[in-house]
């Protein structure tokens, strides 16, 4: 109770101080507000929630950001990463949603923040939180066995148009979630009847196995998951969902869907959010800090190491981007009859 009271008092104090200073900030102009007395600064450790178990994409992003913030000296306060696993993210989101107004509880997220609520499995979606900044982008890859008869996406989609029942797509997530939707989006743009696509979900790590032993035909996954298998000559990537070819060894060999004449992309964006009703001054603080992080050479090395793309958006851009993405995904789910 004491802790909560203290926190409440702190928040109250902050609200009061920022409310008082907001006038002066506006007067000071938005271009340069360093030295502004109303600026918010963390005065205790910051917590970043990864709404998944340790070791996944969210966890890696959160931990790397936390580490680089401190190593590059961008934020001096300690940053702790906490794993809140469960419900495809909804457990972690519910936790952060309960921290209304706190500028010390951030979380990392990606398209599931839109998909999971649309599938009816979380009562919180991106509109309930305060978008701070998007940081990186990752892309989907569609792979087939190395000796498969298709050499590009158009050959595959042509066969799918002729006989949709002959081709099975596998992914590691449930229907209506990322691995499924990313494939649907590209297939739709190519003119395939998406209601006829056979999608199998394998959530116990067997998706790649099923592809390798020929049980299924196409593996819808992230770009990074395919690289080692391609290098070993086990699978080939028919297409990736980025705007332009990716950079890097092996990665640059993957053709985009766009260059194959299919006008669609899918971005696995990853960024940071705060609890509902986070204070504007704190949002501004984090926006700037994430920008600094994104521009730092330390984080550039991290991006290179994990094969991520740079994709910075500030709070406002991010919000707009998410609203658009949500509409788009909702349309796809409606077509599939999966929207709830």
């Amino acid at each position: 109770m004491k802790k909560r009271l203290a926190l409440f008092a702190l928040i109250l104090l902050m609200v009061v101080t920022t409310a008082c200073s907001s006038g002066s900030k506006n007067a000071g102009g938005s271009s340069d507000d360093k030295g502004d007395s109303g600026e918010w600064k963390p005065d205790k450790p910051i917590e970043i929630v990864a709404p998944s178990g340790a070791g996944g994409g969210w966890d890696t992003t959160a931990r790397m950001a936390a580490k680089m913030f401190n190593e590059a000296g961008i934020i001096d306060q300690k940053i702790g990463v906490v794993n809140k696993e469960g419900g495809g993210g909804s457990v972690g989101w519910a936790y952060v949603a309960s921290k209304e107004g706190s500028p010390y509880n951030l979380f990392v997220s990606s398209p599931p923040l839109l998909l999971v609520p649309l599938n009816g499995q979380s009562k919180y979606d991106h509109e309930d939180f305060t978008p701070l900044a998007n940081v990186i982008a990752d892309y989907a890859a569609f792979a087939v066995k190395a000796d498969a008869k298709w050499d590009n996406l158009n050959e595959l989609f042509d066969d799918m148009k002729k006989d949709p029942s002959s081709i099975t797509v596998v992914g590691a997530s449930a229907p209506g979630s990322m691995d499924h939707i990313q494939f649907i989006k590209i297939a739709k743009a190519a003119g395939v009847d998406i209601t006829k696509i056979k999608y199998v979900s394998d959530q116990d790590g067997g998706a790649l196995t099923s592809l390798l032993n020929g049980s299924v035909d196409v593996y819808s996954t992230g770009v990074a998951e395919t690289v080692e298998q391609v290098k070993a000559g086990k699978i080939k990537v028919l297409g990736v969902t980025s705007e332009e070819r990716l950079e890097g060894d092996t990665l640059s060999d993957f053709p985009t869907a766009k260059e194959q004449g299919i006008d669609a992309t899918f971005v696995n964006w990853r960024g940071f959010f705060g609890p509902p009703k986070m204070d504007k001054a704190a949002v501004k603080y984090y926006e700037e800090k994430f920008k600094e992080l994104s521009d730092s050479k330390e984080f550039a090395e991290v991006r290179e190491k994990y094969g991520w793309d740079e994709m910075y958006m500030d709070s406002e851009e991010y919000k707009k981007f998410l609203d658009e993405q949500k509409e788009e995904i909702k349309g796809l789910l409606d077509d599939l009859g999966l929207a709830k």
Partner: protein
Amino acid sequence: MDVFHGLIQGFEIALSFQGLMFVFIGVVVGTVIGMIPGLGPITAIAVMIPITYGMDPAIALLLMAGVYYGAAYGGAAASILLNAPGTSEAVATTFDGYPLAKQGHAGKALALSAIGSFVGGTISIILLTFLAPTLAKVAVSFGPPEYFALMLLGLTAIASLSEGSTIKALISGTIGLMIATVGIDAQTGTARFTFGNAHLLEGIDFLVIALGLFALAEVASLIKNRKEKATNMHSVGSLKLTKAEAKEVAPTMGRQSLLGFLVGVLPGAGGTIASFMAYISEKKLSKNPEKFGKGAIRGVAAPESANNAASGGAFVPLLSLGIPGSGTTAVMLGALIVLGIQPGPLLMNDHPDVFWGVIASMYIGNILLLILNLPLIPYISRILLVPRQLLISLIIVFCIIGVYAVSFSTFDLYLLLGFGVLGYVMRVIKFPAAPMLLAFILGGMMEQAFRQSLTISNGSLSIFVTSPIAAGMLLVAFLAFLVPIIKSRKSKKNDPAENNKSA
């Protein structure tokens, strides 16, 4: 020769000061965590991941591997001493381990499990060392229809696990299958049998059911029978096996290690199926199958050899293909990615230090575990010397902590209590609980594999017979199911009195 060259390189890493230290830390942490019901290897490794940031990847993986097989070692203790299996791999160990402890042979049961684990672990590492690249093909030979057949084969154990009425065992198994359907369905994303309760979206956790049906039900029985002065439970007994006993379990450990390793190689199958299959096959092979479930030493040696061998087998797909074979190795794979190593078919060439370092460290880790565990047995089993009132409270506390540590949800505690009551009622009306738990463990995976197969085949059941592996296993499964039923029909006809008893 490449193998030996690689092994030498591996031992250089594993025997370095840092290597030895982290293998030691890994196996100690693994054993301790394995002993506490509720803290399985997945939790342990997830806790380790943040510690490994910035570590040399080879050292980080050998630390996590140590935790992994260390937990498989330690998992037997709670099963044998408290009838509280902390992981699904350790369920089969309770069947004969706990009766042995009740009869005052806790020391022997624990020694058997330690030795069985050592044998299983060592045999699987040797196979891993020499056959990993060859076995990689086996690892990917199973698709959805084959997995369905394998799970169904595992389910036939229900018939073997039933004492007395097969019908009761089947009812119990059916309830288990029903419980497995609770939660979000992976193939459609629909919530099933959740009654709008968000706590049920993830399904019911294994621990809730296992600790409820086994441990809490046992506690209730202990309370009810508190006046009886029967048990020898307060004595631990000798650790030593007689020559005859050693002779009896040696072939068991050998063959079940092989079986366990092979099942472990298959991604997704893992230690649970391996331990159940080992238990059942050993019962079938035994000349005195009626002794199983009442404290047969082979009933402890078989699952313990198999589940440890399976944890070694799970490294085959992980190291040679970059495919995780179990939930725990999936977490390890994630940790490797965080450390900047993308595991895949080229791991052995690109990062021989990681590949061979881990394998070499497992030889050392297994020896360390045996040296650590054997002398500890008298101390661990002292828990039985605790006065019964205290022991009972202790078991309840362990169960509650275990369940709460998984989900941090009080709803699960009510469920635990519910399953405890159910388990006790089932005991009173003589319904076996093991088939329910087994069906629950296998049911979820079996259903997914079944529906994946049917999606692939556009709804045609022929997919299950066109694959020779699947067809073969299905045939064995049906035989295993039918033979006992026919047998019991025959014996019932011969003995109508028996019929009345079981009805």
